[in-house]
């Protein structure tokens, strides 16, 4: 998993079956010093509570779909936690 900052939302009315009700957010990946790292990605909100501005952690690849109610869906990034604190 990696850290990311939620910087936006995506709305898509027409989606492949299984993605209905899934919230998509734009997440800027961060390095461990919380500096932007690479290009923003579209991530499913696996905690149902993330929003713009929040520091989150994101799981990538096939495991992302496991964060959703329907796990056999085409999703490659998912927010699985909202960060309270990172040290250092």
């Amino acid at each position, binding site marked *: *998993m990696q850290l990311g900052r939620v910087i936006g939302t995506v709305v898509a009315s027409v989606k492949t079956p299984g993605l209905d009700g899934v919230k998509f957010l734009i997440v800027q990946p961060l390095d*461990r010093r919380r500096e932007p790292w690479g290009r923003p990605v579209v991530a499913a909100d696996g905690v149902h509570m993330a929003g713009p501005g929040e520091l989150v*952690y994101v*799981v990538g690849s*096939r495991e992302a779909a496991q964060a959703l109610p329907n796990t056999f869906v085409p999703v490659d990034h*998912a927010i699985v*936690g*909202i960060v309270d604190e*990172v*040290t250092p």
Partner: protein
Amino acid sequence: MKIGSVVGTVVSTINAPVFDDRKLLLCDIVDPDGTPSGGYLIAVDVVGAGTGETVLIIDEGNSARQIVGLDTAPIRAVVVGIVDEVDIGG
């Protein structure tokens, strides 16, 4: 598996249920000689590792789910060992 160096921790209260009551470690990925190779991972700790230690990290979903005993968990990276020594070239 990858070799990592634990540099910190991540704390969350709103998270996928698999992360409840689990320690998340911030780990630099390192070369066998200990040099950071640029990347990092947030990994679940199952061995009691802490900051400053060199660790073994599995970054693969099926293995990770097997370790935590949940076959539908959104988890990939797990710290599965604490490295005592790496020897290259005998």
